[in-house]
């Protein structure tokens, strides 16, 4: 995972649900690139074409509410999005993102901080988001230590392998 992520903002409101992130009719696949083509299809059919690798989603409260489909963060990742920054996340979406290696950042105040098309630079180590278009910055809290244990070894599957050694 790069320590600094830089990209353009694609902005969404609150309560963005997993059905609009990836509609159920595409769930027969779990290939990130295939799913990525249909990411946000019902809100904006051209979304995946607009995204450049490294772009960032900015959203309001409760991002990813609804279903437990891991296909939702997979679709976002497959579309080329490098990070999702939201006021808050629905819990299963947050878990799934960590597990599949999509960077998710809970940053209260982000909706006011960034607008559609702004260029953001996210410094994961420093816990800081810089808005290069507006020349402002916003601090965020790092993930709890326990979750960093999982991320540090490279995700849940690697964590599982580590745990197996202790059994």
């Amino acid at each position, binding site marked *: 995972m790069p320590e600094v992520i830089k990209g353009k903002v694609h902005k969404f409101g609150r309560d963005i649900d997993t*059905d609009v992130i990836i509609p159920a009719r595409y*769930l027969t696949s779990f290939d990130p690139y295939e799913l990525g083509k249909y990411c946000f299809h019902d809100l904006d059919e051209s979304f995946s074409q607009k995204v450049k690798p490294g772009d960032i989603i900015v959203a309001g409260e409760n991002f990813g509410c609804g279903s*437990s489909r*891991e296909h939702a963060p997979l679709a976002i990742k497959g579309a080329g999005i490098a990070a999702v920054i939201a006021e808050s996340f629905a819990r299963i979406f947050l*878990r799934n993102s960590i597990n599949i290696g999509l960077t998710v950042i809970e940053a209260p105040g982000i909706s006011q901080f960034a607008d559609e098309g702004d260029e953001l630079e996210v410094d994961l180590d420093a816990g800081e988001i810089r808005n290069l278009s507006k020349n402002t910055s916003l601090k965020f809290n790092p993930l709890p230590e326990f979750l960093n244990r999982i991320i540090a070894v490279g995700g849940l599957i690697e964590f599982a392998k580590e745990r197996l050694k202790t059994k």
Partner: protein
Amino acid sequence: MGRTIAEKIFETHVIEGNPAAGDFVLARIDLVLMNDITAPPAIKAFEKIGVETVFDRTRVVLVPDHFTPNKDIESAMNVKMMREFARKHAIENYFEVGRGGVEHALLPEKGLTLPGMLIVGADSHTCTYGAVNAFATGVGSTDAAYAMALGELWFKVPETIRVNLEGHLNPWVTGKDLILKLIGMIGVDGARYKVLEFGGSLLKELSLDSRFTIANMAVEAGAKAGIFEPDETLFSWVSEFDPEPEFFYPDSDARYEEVIDLNASDIDLQVAFPHLPSNTRNVSEIKEKIYVDQVFIGSCTNGRIEDLRIAAHIVKGKKVAENVRLIVIPATQEIYRQALKEGLIDIFVEAGAAVGTPTCGPCLGGHHGILAKGEKALSTSNRNFIGRMGHKESEVYLAGPAVAAATAVAGYITSPAEVL
């Protein structure tokens, strides 16, 4: 300091960490569930972990229910992968089409979900099993793979919101109306990361089927789980499956983040308008005539026998309105059979309904009743997000079985009083 039901269940399962609200723990898992959408990625992840077999072949459950009977070749391939995995690892609880049904109605029926268990399922409505005093929560496929390999998983022990259910149920009101009312009050993230713990004097008249409906939709308020206190109704249910059950009660001085008092006597039949389950209104307050194209009675929320009995009682001897398609799907084979014995299926078919074999199908816009552009549906399921049941310009209204049946007969959203 007293503890909540959730904290007590975590205490009996903790492997590492302190089982108090807010802390992270590794905990032992009693049951892991997957369906035909979530199992294939979980199987791939499981294979990457590299264990020889599952942690306990009696505690892994595989239910092909979402796109089954297979709606297309891709679905058929996914289910085939699940079936072969089940055979390879001698998993007892694989439920084939025709011998199963919708997972969250099926598992309790088979006695697989018991009080005090810690259950994870790769399906957000896994929280349904809180109705039987278990801590059950939805996770993704990678989490399910981890749990299936190691028999454990990490959790943040959640804070609890206590919901006291009091008063008496009004005519036709069921669990669906209570939970829609609550979601309308607190919003779709009102219980985000938290547990909704239900108890109170209303339990004496609240059926187990209604409790399943309430616990099922806890996730629609963002909750991690919805757990009911045990009572006589649960004692008699569980005696069929477990001779020595262990029940979990909250301490009288348990620490709650919030306490909500819900008086059923004040709660009327509810409808959630598009496109969020929190957009609720009393049916009696809907002044305009909202005509619908389709009514769906079924799903893990309201496809149980109580729901079918209520709907059949209202539909009996009447016809489905000319411009409406009524789709009825009993949630499991057992429920289907019971409905046949009681003559309920005959009532639906005679009224002009399409009765389908158990599947999640239309609830998630999978198959068996997809909406076209501009169509409106009233559904007894759990979500009315944009495009949930079909075209992005279709609309879904959510309600319980009584409003659904009355709406199917009238052709527009209404209460049973208007058609009886």
